[in-house]
């Protein structure tokens, strides 16, 4: 296992390097620059700004400079939020996004798996259809519709919860977490149902049933574990996405997470900020995919990485 982990870590480095290279040059292809504004700057000042942020150097030199800084853990100054460095901005925003994302993830997993398994056990019965229809609606309603609706009902009309704003407190997290979790619950429920049905029809479940094992045991000990494999592989990238925030949810609930930086950063041509969040996202994806593989091995005894077994 250790061997495998080290190998995975080794392959992560070139992946990240490619990602950084690609992102670095791609963002600079976009027309316009970070200091363009409706107000035209005197050329001398423009030149000075370019020099201050090294934008006057050849792109390759800038790239090398960026890599060198990054290796030392410095993501550079933000080109848009002039008083802050990218490290500052991510340090302020990431805990917010992580907290929301983690809460949504736990909620979605708990509800999604239970609901999905429950529907699978009542396959093709009214309960199944109802639950799956609700899940379909959950997937289809976009969060930019769901969020204002929740605000309108629970904050403006009923006045039970705040209409937005951020604090690490239960009442301010409820609505954004629900908004984030709803589509995930729906996805997880559908995936769980599908794979659960498949597992329930497999021969080894028939065998344990034939042996007279109580149904509860069959479901919890034998069926659920393998049925979770597809959920786990969905969770890897999904967790990375949800932990890095959501533009829509942040906008609508005025949450200072890092999700907005992906979009605002690009619109503002805040090169370093975009790079910062892209790198963070990349690292998380790699990390979670790695965790998924480890979980796979734990859940499915047929998968063993260091013994020349099959890798899925």
């Amino acid at each position, binding site marked *: 296992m250790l061997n495998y982990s080290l190998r995975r870590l080794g392959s992560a480095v070139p992946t990240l390097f490619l990602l950084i290279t690609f992102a670095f040059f791609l963002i600079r292809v*976009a*027309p*316009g*620059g970070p*200091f*363009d*504004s*409706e*107000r*035209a*700057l*005197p*050329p*001398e*000042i423009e*030149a*000075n*700004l370019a020099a*201050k942020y090294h934008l006057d150097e050849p792109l390759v030199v800038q790239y090398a400079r960026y890599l060198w800084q990054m290796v030392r853990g410095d993501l550079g*100054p933000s080109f*848009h*939020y*002039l*008083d*802050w460095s990218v490290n*500052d*901005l991510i340090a*302020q*925003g990431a805990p917010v996004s992580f907290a929301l994302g983690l809460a949504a993830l736990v909620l979605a997993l708990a509800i999604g798996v239970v609901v999905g398994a429950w529907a699978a056990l009542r396959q093709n019965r009214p309960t199944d259809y109802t639950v799956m229809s609700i899940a379909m609606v959950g997937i289809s309603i976009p969060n*930019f*519709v769901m969020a*204002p*609706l929740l*605000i*309108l009902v629970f*904050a*403006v009309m009923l*006045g039970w919860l*705040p*209409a*937005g*704003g*951020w*604090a690490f*407190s239960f009442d*301010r997290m409820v609505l954004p977490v629900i908004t984030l979790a709803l589509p995930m619950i729906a996805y997880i429920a559908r995936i769980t149902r599908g794979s659960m049905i498949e597992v329930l029809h497999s021969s080894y479940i028939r065998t344990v049933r034939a042996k007279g094992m109580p149904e509860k045991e069959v479901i919890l000990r034998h069926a659920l574990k393998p049925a979770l494999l597809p959920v786990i592989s969905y969770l890897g990238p999904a967790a990375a996405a949800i932990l890095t925030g959501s533009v829509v949810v*942040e*906008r*609508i*609930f*005025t*949450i*200072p997470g890092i999700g*907005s930086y992906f979009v*605002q950063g690009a*619109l503002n*041509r805040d090169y370093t900020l975009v790079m910062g969040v892209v790198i963070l996202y990349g690292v998380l994806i790699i990390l979670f995919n790695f965790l998924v593989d480890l979980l796979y091995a734990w859940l499915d005894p047929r998968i063993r990485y260091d013994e020349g077994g099959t890798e899925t």
Partner: protein
Amino acid sequence: MLVLAFGLAGCGADSGEAPAPPPRLPEPMEVAFDEAGRPLEAALARTQVIHRGNGEEPQTLDPHLAEGVPSANILRDLFEGLTTTAPDGRIVPGAARHWDISRDGLTYTFYLDPQARWSNGEPLTAQDFVWSWQRAVAPATGASNSRMLAPVLHAEAIFSGELEPEALGVTALSDTTFQVQLADPTPYFLGLLTHPTTYPVWRPSLEAFGASHVRPGNLVSNGAFVLSDWQVRSRIELSRNEHYREADAVVVERVVYYSFEDENTEFNRFRAGDLHWTYQVPSGQFSWLERNMGEALMVAPWFGTYFFSFNLTREPFKEDLALRRALTLAIDRNILTERVSRFGEIPTFNLIPPGLPDYVPPVPEWADLSQAEREQEARRLYRQAGYGPDRALSVELRYNTSENHRKIAVAVAAMWKQVLGVRTRLVNEEFRVFLQNRAQRRVTQIFRAGWIGDYQDAFTFLELFHSGHGRNDAGYDNPRYDRLLERIASERIAASRRNLMAEAERMILADQVILPVYTYVSKRLVDPRLQGWQENVMDHHLTRHMFLVKAKSSVEPSEEVGDGD
């Protein structure tokens, strides 16, 4: 967003003709004032904490580097220039208690208020201003608005690197006497001094902390408030500055500015009672707001013009005045403001908005025609330019991404089609791409523009069309116009200067460089208990003039609002 609009329409329409106003807008108590103009305690709310919605997160709170309205709003609370604005927008003494202007209008001597202090208690001196202004004009600083100080002697040479910043025409005659030499008499100079670029900055803090000198705890300022907390993209909190020269007259204890990326979100926060003041209102909901929140909806003319601009350097508009005029006359501005933008914007045929104390915009003759007559004239000019049913003009109308811009562009294209038969291709571009295309003048034909005046003078609009101006995206190059601008800059007699400016605006309109649409309005929702402020054309609203009044009922929702975040 669509759903929200339906939801709102639903709330208003369900209960018949006159729905009751939302219960969360409390009625304020009557306020009495003492001789000094300070509101009497009896009617004041116990907690004086104001929550203001403030648009986008400010790029920076360094007054010399800041750009845009959101940061200027906060900076006007944190800092104070030599002059400042009264609630009604008049220019009044700020850090300078009074001043002398030499006969030739070229030397200004400011006498600082001896009470003026930095927020750390140190006295504010003339040397502080000298150093700060030199910093603001130094190219190394990279101040985006440094051109505000362009009228000061040698500023231009410093911008272009010919002279050192120390050569700037400013001197500290004593600790409290600050003298400015101007290159040209600049009648609006006192107004410029309310702009953040002219604010003093605290040198030791800058030298000690560099770029992070504006963080809470590091920032030393000289205004009515100090920075006490800053959570990026969430809230910026200011508290009363005990060392402010008029600290006794400031009623508000704290003001919290919230940044919003979405106007509907801000509106919901206001409806939920979390805000006293919004930065904007949701577009397209004017009638609902007017019916249901009329007492909170504040709309007033603003110092800005929404217009389209022609690219004069390329076909089809190059050298074709008749065609440009035809397109200008063919659009019905009343429909655009009443049916499309719908926020009480004022239709205009001018470049310079109304409301300046000493300027009357010249009205072009077609403004007095009826719309039918204008359209007839438009058709005549269109034919004169060589176009007609068998040879229709095809044109590209370019605008930057925004719901309002899109709606206006669609309507304008429809009007051209209907009146003249013009085929318009709408091109929507992301803001920076749009700016770059405009500046390059290679692909543009007609494009959206708009300008909010920087200072209270017609010149802030006129200078845009100088052949050498960096934002002259129309490519207007008229030596007569350039000479006129130079004469305006050096004219010392107010009446002649006024006439010259009117002549310059007439020239822009006669040459049909732009297609004016409407005068901007400022629009926001304000809790009726928040008082002490007034509408003004520059839309400057300093928190130090404001105060919160008790509600008539005994409950005070404001005391529990939004403080938790």
